[in-house]
């Protein structure tokens, strides 16, 4: 297509930053991060399938401080994308578009996903002690 210098509609840079915009871009960012994180899931399952030694290597890698950091980030990204995804599904059904609701559900997404992350890790740590 020929490039002509037609006037463009205002783009992202012209709007002032809003909290809801932050969640919008974080939904995309966490989606990309989760897609990358699935490599870890497939590696983990494949290691378990190939034997005890490979599984021990994988557990060692995931159990290292760096592995745990990645896993923690992955878990928060997962819960964030899950909560915000449910928010998107409500929008798809036609609910929650007004400013007050969109703001409240954004705030709820941040706090609920943080709470779920903490609960999941506390559960994991307690089961680890129990095993």
């Amino acid at each position, binding site marked *: 297509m020929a490039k002509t210098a037609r006037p463009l509609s205002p783009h992202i840079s012209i709007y002032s930053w809003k909290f809801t915009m932050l969640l919008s871009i974080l939904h*995309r960012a966490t*989606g*990309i991060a*989760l*897609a990358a994180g*699935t*490599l870890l*899931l*497939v590696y983990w*399952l*494949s290691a*378990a*399938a190939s*034997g*005890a030694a490979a*599984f*021990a290597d994988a557990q060692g890698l995931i159990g290292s401080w760096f592995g745990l950091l990645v896993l923690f980030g992955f*878990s928060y990204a*997962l*819960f964030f994308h*899950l909560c915000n*995804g*449910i928010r*998107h*599904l409500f929008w*798809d059904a036609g609910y929650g578009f007004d400013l007050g609701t969109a703001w409240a559900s954004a705030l709820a997404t941040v706090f609920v996903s943080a709470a*779920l992350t903490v609960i*999941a*890790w506390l*559960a*994991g*740590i307690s*089961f*680890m002690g129990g*095993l």
Partner: protein
Amino acid sequence: MSTAKKSAPMRSALGRVRHLGSAKEGVQHWWAQRLTALALVPLTLWFVASIAWLAGADHAGFTGWVARPHNALLMILLLGAGFHHAQLGLQVVIEDYVHGEGAKLAALIVVKFAALLLALAGIFAVLKIAFGA
């Protein structure tokens, strides 16, 4: 030229005569992304609860858990729905940000192939554990 235009059709006259129009697949991508999202809500909660439960499990404990039929089935569903959802989402990201036609096509092909390969690798691993190879 008619003056009283009640509704100006967007479709061409030839298209209307031939009954050509939407192939009814315009929302296919959107719908598939929502369906997989819906499936992933319970699957994700099950997955995270399971991972927490399995924290610190050894190889025998982990494979024993995977090998139970309902766990194997749910894990396969998670991999299928998850990778399908991921490649649909990444496709939109690529279409939004990669503007060169060649680079866009290359990126889409890599993402689609990688998603299928990884999903099958994961499912294969689950089946291998489940059938006790």
